């Protein structure tokens, strides 16, 4: 009974060295201990790992000495039998032991071979790879392809797919894409303004065709009625803008080359500017056309304007220029000092605001009844309207009548007054007064009152009374004449002519027209100027002794707007000195869609613009703020075309 143990070692060249030894014993040990017959210098092997015993039939029985197993033909076990005639392979740690019979077929041969290196570090390895990040990170090439393809798919292919899918919805006012993720929404350059919010998810609503700039037709799909008409002739609009110069011309040319024509709605109404309201019109936006427009559009009636401080035409207030029946005829006249407007009244501001005449004296005698105690003030007659922007017409009953009384009779403690504004009623009332009343009946004509004795006195009194009674109604005409003529209460304020009908006893009152708005192309808000004294702007009021004097200020001169207001960027004429300049761009007074209200201001900017208009004025409450400007909830569209 013996074993042959062949230990195979490898030279560095790869050649094998075989050391063969024969052990004449029935049983031998396998282990790391050098005393073992099969000595395996392997730390994964126990000092005595297993015993190999040869049975009588030549079959080898291998039994592990501890719990640590070994492998037989690749399977881990604690005990195994191997017939050397059949052969088998044992594995202990990094060693393999092949079992076979020797050439004679007599003795079992155990061929021991180390198959694993002593340590991991001893393994062969590619140096350059080992010291790099290879295997630890995905390769640069693969991730470059991966990222690039992902981006191209998600942000190019998918959006184009979305566009192609929903293209048929274009040019349809009510067509909306379903909610959800649409690839082309990743292409948006910013959210749409509030008014177009509903279209945020519907790119094809405006971008109807690929590589074709947004067309006016796309806008008109929805804006069927409210598309404005600043200038009906689009060619004139383009002409007014003039040819772009410099780099803008280059851009225009390039845009043209890239299929982006000029003069479309979206040239001015830009979108994707953020989710706010549409932005306020910028001064440049107006000046693009209106600066030097006369040169480009010689037949225009509009004067050139570029900046309030330096290049703005003189104001042209709308004045009453005569009457057509009861309706005033208005005319825009260039403002100038000494401009006259006849409103039909004889009222003089200087006389009424005087601090020394009888009017002032009367005010002093009636303390507490007027705004001031020493003379009349503006507010005694002029009352702001509900918005505060302008003033209500001066009302005779509330403003004038306390002095210019129309009383003609007193019954008990009650005064009877003539009807203002109705001259035929005045005439009728006076006639009725004289018809229905009589002279006071003398006391000695009636009853048992004491009287002068004798009939003569009584007859005389009766005759007098009868004559008085007979002629009493005739006094009406005299009274009427008095009232309408110089010195009469009508004639104090009104221009009275003799051209009336019989109803008015031949008298006629010249019609009165109070001009409620002088600047109809621009916006002026008195509420924004409440911090200022009235006479700062209406500087002639205290000294005007002519009823027709126009007290509305112009752009320049004393009380003119340029006394405080400078251009949008603070520009002003060299001749003007301004103490507290207020930057005033076009949009402060003008609106593209001008109507009876205040210029439109974006909701976000309202408070700011409010402050801008009011200068340093601070509002006490939100209500005050709201009253100061009639705030439009949306851009207004013109009520009538230019």
């Amino acid at each position, binding site marked *: 009974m013996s074993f042959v143990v062949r230990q195979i070692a490898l030279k560095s060249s790869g050649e094998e060295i075989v050391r063969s030894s024969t052990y004449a014993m029935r049983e031998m040990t396998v282990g790391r201990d050098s005393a073992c017959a099969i000595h395996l210098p392997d730390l994964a092997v126990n000092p005595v790992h297993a015993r190999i015993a040869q049975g009588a039939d030549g079959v080898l029985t291998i039994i592990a000495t501890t719990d640590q197993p070994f492998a037989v033909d690749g399977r881990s076990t604690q005990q195994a039998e191997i017939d050397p005639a059949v052969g088998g392979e044992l594995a202990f740690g990094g060693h393999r032991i092949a079992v076979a019979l020797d050439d004679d077929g007599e003795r079992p041969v155990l061929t021991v071979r180390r198959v694993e290196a002593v*340590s991991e*570090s001893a393994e062969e390895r590619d140096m350059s790879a080992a010291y790099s*990040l290879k295997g630890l990170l995905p390769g640069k090439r693969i991730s470059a392809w991966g990222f690039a393809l992902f981006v191209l798919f998600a942000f190019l292919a998918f959006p184009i797919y979305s566009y192609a899918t929903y293209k048929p919805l274009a040019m349809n006012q009510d067509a909306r894409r379903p909610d959800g993720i649409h690839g082309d929404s990743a292409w948006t350059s910013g959210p749409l303004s509030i008014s177009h919010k509903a279209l945020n998810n519907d790119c094809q609503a405006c971008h109807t065709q690929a590589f074709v700039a947004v067309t006016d037709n796309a806008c008109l799909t929805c804006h069927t009625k409210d598309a404005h008409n600043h200038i009906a002739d689009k060619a004139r609009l383009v002409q007014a803008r003039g040819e772009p110069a410099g780099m803008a011309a280059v851009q225009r040319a390039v845009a043209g080359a890239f299929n982006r024509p000029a003069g479309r709605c979206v040239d001015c109404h830009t979108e994707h500017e953020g989710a706010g309201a549409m932005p306020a019109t910028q001064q440049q936006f107006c000046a693009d056309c209106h600066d030097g427009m006369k040169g480009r559009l010689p037949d225009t009636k509009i004067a050139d304007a570029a900046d309030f401080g330096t290049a703005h035409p003189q104001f042209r207030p709308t004045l009453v220029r005569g009457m057509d029946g009861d309706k005033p005829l208005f005319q825009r006249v260039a403002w100038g000092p000494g401009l006259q407007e006849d409103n039909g009244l004889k009222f003089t501001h200087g006389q009424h605001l005087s601090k020394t005449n009888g009017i002032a004296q009367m005010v002093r005698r009636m303390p507490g009844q007027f705004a001031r105690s020493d003379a009349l003030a503006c507010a005694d007659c002029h009352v702001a309207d509900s918005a505060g922007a302008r003033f209500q017409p001066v009302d005779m009953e509330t403003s004038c009548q306390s002095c210019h009384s129309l009383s003609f009779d007193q019954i008990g403690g009650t005064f009877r007054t003539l009807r203002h504004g109705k001259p035929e009623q005045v005439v009728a009332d006076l006639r009725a007064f004289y018809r229905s009343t009589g002279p006071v009946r003398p006391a000695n004509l009636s009853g048992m009152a004491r009287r002068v004795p004798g009939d003569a006195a009584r007859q005389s009194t009766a005759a007098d009374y009868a004559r008085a009674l007979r002629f009493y109604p005739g006094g009406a005409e005299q009274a009427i004449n008095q009232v309408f003529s110089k010195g009469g209460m009508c004639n104090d304020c009104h221009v009275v002519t003799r051209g009336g009908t019989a109803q008015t006893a031949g008298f006629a009152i010249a019609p009165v027209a109070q001009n409620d708005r002088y600047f109809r192309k621009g916006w002026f808000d008195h509420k924004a100027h409440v911090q200022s004294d009235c006479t700062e702007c209406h500087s002639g009021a205290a000294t005007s002794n002519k009823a027709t004097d126009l007290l509305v200020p112009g752009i320049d001169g004393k009380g003119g707007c340029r006394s405080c207001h400078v251009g949008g960027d603070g520009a002003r004429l060299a001749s003007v000195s301004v103490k507290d300049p207020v930057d005033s761009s076009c949009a402060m007074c003008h609106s593209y869609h001008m109507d009876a209200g205040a210029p439109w201001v974006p909701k976000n900017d309202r408070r700011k613009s409010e402050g801008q208009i009011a200068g340093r004025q601070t509002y006490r409450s939100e209500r005050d703020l709201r009253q100061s400007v009639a705030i439009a909830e949306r851009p207004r569209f013109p009520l009538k075309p230019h």
Partner: protein
Amino acid sequence: MATTPNKPAVARKTGASRQRQTTHQGFLTHRNMYWAKLSGGLALVLILLYIFVPLPGTHFGASWLGYTLGTIGALLILWLTMLGMRKRAITPGRWSLKAWTSAHVYLGLLVTVIGTLHSGFYFGWNVHTLAWALMLLVVASGIFGIYAYATLPRALSANRYDEDGAITEKQMIEALRSLDRQIHDAAQPLDAQAAMLVGRSLEQDPFGGRIWNRVTGNYPDCATHSAIVELRALRASRQRTKDDLLGRIEAQLSRKEAMLERLRQHLKLKSWLQAWLFVHVPVTFALIAALSAHVVSVFFYW
């Protein structure tokens, strides 16, 4: 005679001396920082243009200056990408690779200014801002790369030097192999429990670990370290013998641990030198893809 004292100085100035000084000039300071000055000047000019050129206050990218900046920026990005091809051909002179790299670095920094001005500081969740963000990511990784190239090689050298001189990468592996062999031989008499601990140390790949371990140089699962700790505990619990086998093995493992520490520091520094490129290069291609989508989308929804 009066002139003699000056002569040696003159001689040195003519370069007749055999001493020659060669200073390495890196790509950062190439040509007295020509490209840095050029880029800085251009950035200043562009910012001034952005501030002072009167343009409509709408989308800046859609103005003539915006389109110009966008076109320049896109072409510049493509040119910057070309460094990957250019670097494979090393040439001297004015258009040397060094000059090219210098231009790459400083024009790459300039592209952030161009791209940001082109955006008009108008950002959103869209492909346009995506391209801008990817551009910043690429430039940021590039800046990190420059920082790494400027500082880490010194640390790398310092790590390789010890009192016996420098050690090469190959020598590091050889040293570990040698230590492993010694430990393996010494550990043969050990009992099964101790042998298993030592065996774990030998079987652990010194180059193993994940990217996180590599980049931080922190290996909490180091088998060598745990073998030392456990052997120490084992040794303390056992009766002291004359032949302190465990003590010797522990000492050898400690030497291996020190060597591993140095190797891992080396790997960490090398990974920092390389890792930024794994962001810089792939994101560049993602950027070019996003840029293409950006340009197409602008013209598509014109």
